[in-house]
């Protein structure tokens, strides 16, 4: 018998959780098919199918879904509502499976399990895996066990991007070994690590001779950062963005911070303001770099170059 083919679009939460999904599905005997890295045609296709109000990352997701839909038996589009007790995904993410259904005809089956820690607490993974088990006709306990075990599999990040953990930043001192300009990069993984959307920002900064740093904050760091701002950030990922910015601002080895956001992102417009007004108390060079479907490489490069010139002169 032929294996079921399950398609996972390489966009949005792919950049946060895909390794665990891929691993679990292949261990369950499915053929996992992922779309390639975003390229111009994928984006064009996504924009074609989307309504104008959707943000760029969601449009990108639609492009990936379009590419996969005819060559798979099932599309995996989980509905992530909350990954912690007191946090929420952006509404566009919560409605993602519905958006895909509304934008296309002739879709394969869609598995859209609900991930909702606020509602299900410790049973979130158990609930999450029920519709998966049903859709692929396997025993729920087996599916649950695999997904539970693989949950924390790290996501692979393209090699040129320096990804350090917050602990590493403070203890190992990766930053002080050579005195290149160190630029902290904050933003949502699906924007930063999609090289087409972020215009290969990490590489561009490296080519200009600086050291771009992305970090994955840990729980104690988040608690510390949340204590600095007037209100708990309840947007998922927003909390990580704010925490990373906080860690970068307070570390003397980091010369400047760039916040990469999608130009119409609602949650980012809140966190961006928090970062600028509340966290940058030492007035470190800071720039919000907004990414838009029309933005040419030149516009982004001009900003990055100017930002680095600014750092060079401020720190001289």
């Amino acid at each position, binding site marked *: 018998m032929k294996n079921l083919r399950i398609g996972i679009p390489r966009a949005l939460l792919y950049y946060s959780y895909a390794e665990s999904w891929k691993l679990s599905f292949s261990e369950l005997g499915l053929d996992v098919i992922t779309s390639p890295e975003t390229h*111009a045609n994928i984006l064009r296709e996504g924009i074609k199918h989307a309504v104008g109000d959707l943000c760029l990352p969601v449009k990108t997701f639609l492009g990936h879904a379009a590419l996969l839909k005819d060559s798979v038996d099932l599309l995996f589009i989980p509905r992530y509502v909350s990954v912690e007790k007191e946090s929420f995904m952006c509404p566009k993410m919560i409605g993602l499976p519905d958006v895909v259904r509304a934008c296309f005809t002739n879709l394969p089956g869609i598995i859209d399990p609900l991930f909702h820690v606020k509602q299900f607490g410790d049973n979130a993974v158990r609930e999450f895996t029920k519709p998966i088990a049903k859709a692929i006709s396997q025993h729920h306990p087996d599916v649950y066990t695999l997904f539970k075990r693989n949950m924390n599999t790290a996501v692979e990040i393209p090699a040129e991007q320096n990804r350090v953990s917050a602990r590493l930043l403070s203890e190992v001192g990766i930053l002080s070994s050579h005195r290149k300009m160190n630029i902290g990069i904050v933003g949502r993984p699906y924007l930063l690590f999609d090289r087409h959307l972020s215009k290969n920002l990490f590489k561009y900064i490296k080519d200009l001779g600086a050291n771009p740093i992305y970090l994955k904050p840990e729980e104690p760091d988040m608690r510390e950062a949340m204590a600095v701002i007037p209100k708990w950030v309840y947007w998922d990922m927003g909390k990580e963005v704010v925490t990373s910015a906080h860690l970068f601002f307070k570390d003397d080895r980091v010369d400047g911070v760039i916040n990469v956001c999608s130009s119409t992102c609602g949650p980012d417009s809140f966190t961006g303001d928090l970062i*600028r007004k509340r966290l940058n108390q030492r007035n470190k060079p800071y720039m919000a770099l907004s990414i838009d479907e029309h933005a040419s490489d030149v516009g982004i490069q001009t900003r990055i*170059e100017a930002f680095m010139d600014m750092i060079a002169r401020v720190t001289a």
Partner: protein
Amino acid sequence: MEAYLGIDVGSVTTKVVLIDRHGTALWSSYKKTMGQPIKALQSAFSALRRGMGDIEIRGVGTTGSGRKLADYIVGADEVKNEITAHAVSAIHHIPNVRTIVEIGGQDSKLILIRNGVVVDFSMNTVCAAGTGSFLEHQAARLGIAIEELGNYALAASSPARIAGRCTVFAESDMIHKQQMGHNLEDIVAGLCDALVRNYLNNLSRGKEISDPVIFQGGVAANPGIKASFERELGKEFIVPHYYPIMGAIGAALLSRNTTQTRFRGWSLSEKQLSTSSFYCSDCPNACGVMQINDCDEVIARWGDTCGKWGRMSE
């Protein structure tokens, strides 16, 4: 005579300036690019030669969105982004400057300076609603020469309220106001207010605009916009003498550190340069690759994400 050349290839205009070692402008030109940056540069070069005779170029700086193109064909020692070029130039002319408001043909910038150092900036590139092209288009629609627009605005008694968020909406708003019977002066003044509001909304949120404020770029020629800014912010906007060529001057100033210039010489103006483009089909990105040809020879290529075509022409 020894001099330094500054070139600012913007989206709408091409600026060329010649300065001496002290930064004094000896010669300058400000011309519409008309979508043909190479031609614009060539004609500026011939005019410079006619006007200045034999000059020894010691350094060349380029800036503007076409700075790389200018570098390819002229040979530059300093290829600098517009923010830095404008800041360097403003600080050179007015050392205690704290804010630079720059509005060009298709983009606008806000640069904050403290103690002679850029400390913050913002720039719009996506939406041209608050820029020179927008004003020019509306002036043409109203049948007013762009140079006259400011004087109309200054003559207004009660500026009409016009939405400046988007050029398309602004235009329908203006038509509506005309049909309601507002006079031309009030509509033009309303247009200036709308542009200023749009600029402040887009660029200055959360940024402190403090004195002295320098207003530069082509739109600074418009006294109506200057007046709108001053009314809105209650601050004086200083328009420097060289306001339209400040970026080019900045690029030239930056090139003064050059020891051995890469300048290709004056023959540029006689060469048969042309540009062409094609879409690469080697991967799904389908990059549009631009190339500059000197007769049959390709002298530069760019636009490819992977850099393959760019390397081939090196």
